[in-house]
């Protein structure tokens, strides 16, 4: 009884002390800007989320070391939410309570669930979800990201494959190419570009095969690959993250499916060849940024900060997702700098005087220039396609959707 009481007392005192410290530290220092960050280190997308999370923290250190936002320091509150949407909602209200100027978000499910609230609260939300739904400013005015949206990526991948691979096929001109998609039906992230995929198949004249449900956690996809074998696709589109894409590639290789593979950005990184081995040879993927360690502007800083703040992880284990995180942070910092110069660091100020003044802004890291307008939040129209040749990633081709289909780009494709 005594033991129990003493422990409960200590616990209670500890808790109360902790809370009172917590409350008191809520006071805002004048010369810092608070940024909230939601990341996935443990959930369904943790295979790519860990590196992104590390990249966010390192990039914020870089911003603070190089003068901050016109002299103001950024204070980062970074949380792991395990890819659980209710968790993301409570974290969001915590960020709001802490008066964060902007939020760096993660997945498609939570970003889309939060979009109406974000718009109401006027907090700029830079996500790692590049879902096309987030580009329509009439619906989601405060959602932004730094990459071509998923729909543009998928359209670009299909176009590049059609122009460079299909035209060399012996059946070219004799029949329509056959395409099928592997993705997790339940995940808004995996399925967000499927509408664009089906539409682009019509535009280019593909035969569309049955969709295959591949879970983000999948390690065995033989039944899906066998189902595809009856359809005999020439090319398979993958829109999951690396772990399950690698599993699908391995199984299609083992079962001799014989189709080319085109992969959305989150399924195409340095880990893919490690996980899939020879099965990854010749895989095409959309990658808006340079791979980790390639020779592009600012990459030296990326590698330097990775070594400095996470010395425990060898550089060869770091991936492109760190670069992605840097792109998000650098883009946000640029917007904050512009808004701060205009003297308005409110949410609306950051959006109107920051992001929406971007016109062909080059943030380095091999990413194409970024433009936002008050009516269109699609930052880029060009999809860069890389190929894994067996020992390295090589730029295979690129397709600028805006140049190829200016009419449709302008009128039809916004908000997919």
């Amino acid at each position, binding site marked *: 009884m005594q033991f129990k009481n003493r422990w409960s007392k200590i616990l209670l005192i500890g808790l109360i002390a902790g809370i009172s410290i917590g409350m008191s530290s809520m006071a805002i220092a004048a010369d810092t800007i608070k940024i909230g960050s939601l990341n996935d280190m443990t959930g369904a997308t943790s295979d790519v989320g860990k590196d992104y999370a590390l990249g966010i923290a390192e990039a914020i250190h870089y911003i603070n070391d190089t003068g901050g936002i016109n002299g103001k320091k950024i204070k980062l509150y970074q949380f792991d939410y395990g890819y659980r949407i209710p968790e993301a909602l*409570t974290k969001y209200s915590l960020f709001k309570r802490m008066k964060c100027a902007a939020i760096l978000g993660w997945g498609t499910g939570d970003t889309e*669930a939060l*979009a109406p609230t974000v718009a109401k609260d006027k907090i700029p939300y830079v996500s790692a979800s590049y879902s096309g739904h987030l580009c329509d400013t009439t619906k989601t005015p405060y959602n932004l990201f730094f990459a071509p949206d998923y729909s543009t990526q998928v359209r670009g991948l299909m176009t590049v494959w059609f122009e460079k691979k299909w035209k060399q096929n012996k059946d070219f001109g004799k029949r329509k190419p056959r395409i099928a998609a592997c993705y997790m039906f339940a995940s808004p992230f995996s399925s967000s570009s499927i509408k664009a995929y089906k539409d682009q198949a019509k535009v280019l004249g593909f035969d569309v095969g049955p969709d295959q449900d591949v879970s983000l956690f999948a390690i065995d996809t033989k039944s899906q690959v066998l189902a595809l074998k009856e359809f005999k696709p020439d090319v398979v589109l993958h829109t999951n993250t690396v772990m399950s894409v690698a599993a699908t590639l391995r199984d299609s290789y083992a079962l001799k499916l014989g189709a080319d593979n085109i992969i959305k950005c989150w399924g195409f990184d340095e880990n893919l060849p490690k996980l899939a081995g020879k099965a990854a040879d010749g895989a095409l993927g959309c990658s808006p940024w340079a791979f980790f360690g390639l020779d592009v502007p600012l990459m030296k800083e990326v590698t330097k900060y990775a070594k400095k703040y996470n010395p425990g992880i060898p550089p060869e284990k770091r991936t492109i997702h760190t670069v992605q995180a840097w792109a998000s942070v650098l883009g946000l910092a640029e917007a904050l700098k512009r808004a701060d110069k205009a003297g308005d660091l409110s949410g609306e100020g950051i959006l109107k005087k920051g992001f929406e003044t971007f016109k062909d802004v080059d943030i380095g890291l091999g990413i194409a220039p970024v433009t936002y307008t008050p009516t269109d939040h699609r930052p880029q129209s060009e999809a860069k396609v890389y190929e894994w040749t067996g020992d390295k990633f090589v730029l295979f081709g690129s397709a600028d959707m805006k140049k190829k289909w200016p009419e449709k780009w302008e009128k039809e494709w916004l908000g997919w």
Partner: protein
Amino acid sequence: MSTTFLPCGDYHQGYAEDHAWFQTKFIKGKMIALFLVLFVFIPISYWGSIFQSAFNIDNYWFSLIIRYISVFGADEYWISVFNMVGYTILGALGVQLLIGYCGQLTLGHGAFIAVGAYTSTLLILEFPWPEFMITLGLAYPVSIFIAGIMAGLFSVLFGLPSARVKGFYLILTTMAAQFILVDFVITQYVSQIGGRGQAFSLPPGTIKIGPWLIDNNYKVYFFMLILVILSCIIISNLVRTRVGRAWVAIRDNDISAEVMGINVIKYKLLAFFVAGFIGGITGSFWISNLAAISPEHFPWFLSLWLVGVILIGGVGSIHGAIFGSLFMVVIMELLQLAVIPLADTYPKLLMDFLFIKEATFGLAICGFLIFEPNGMAYRWWQIKNYFNLWPFSY
């Protein structure tokens, strides 16, 4: 109810009094105080702003006073935390009914919440309501009721095996509900209705009850309070009547219950129906808070979490569901607030908080099973009796 010890000189003189809600004036006073706290003091800043705009007061001192009063209430963050508590309470009440009162172990309750949420969403978005029902704002309230019925029917369907199996085997059959309903039916078919892909989002203005538009956290909070209170009334009325006694008899020993003439299967399925009904209401309540829905909102972990909630709160008690939810949600949030200042020295702490949270969840269950197997509700009962019987507590 009759567990309350009455002051000297107060006696029950009939069954009605024995089962009355408020047995003494003091208890009635306490309950009124509780309602005042819930409806007035916690959302005081909301009332302040309503008052201000209703009388069109644009006075500096007045708004200053309002701001000082609001300090004592909950700000929007805490209101959203309380909404989370309410969601957990509504979910846990169904689990409590099944596990705590009827003894039917279930690990698939999240699926019925999902059924409710999807039924309600689809009814709002796709059903051709007659014009007057939309203008009167009846679409959402009616959809809540239908969502409850739907979820109840599905719950009965997955409760059917309880006629033959019990214990661990029943856990497995109820788990099937998660995989069949959420992972298969909802993701593969239901989510595709209307060509919406996976995620449904409810346009602003669609969630309203009569003329009352539910569009901010405070309104969700009031709506949640009303639903929680109604559900508590329904369940506590059920468990103190013939139905509830039959459930308890089945829980304690189903063979003797049958010998005594209770139709075991009927009452088990009734328990599944009521639990599913409340699950459906939980789901359709939750969409008012989210305004968006996808199958990812209803992982299997949700069902497990709800069982954890009633283990901590106390099995077989309505108080238990409430205390458990408060503990699991509020304590975790407090823990998080406590961690934030420490993050200045240990930056890893924020990122690892999910581990801390999960570990605390497990530890709390272990701790309660070891030190207080009857849960927080029993502790509450003891504390209450200590004061009721003081100073002669023998």
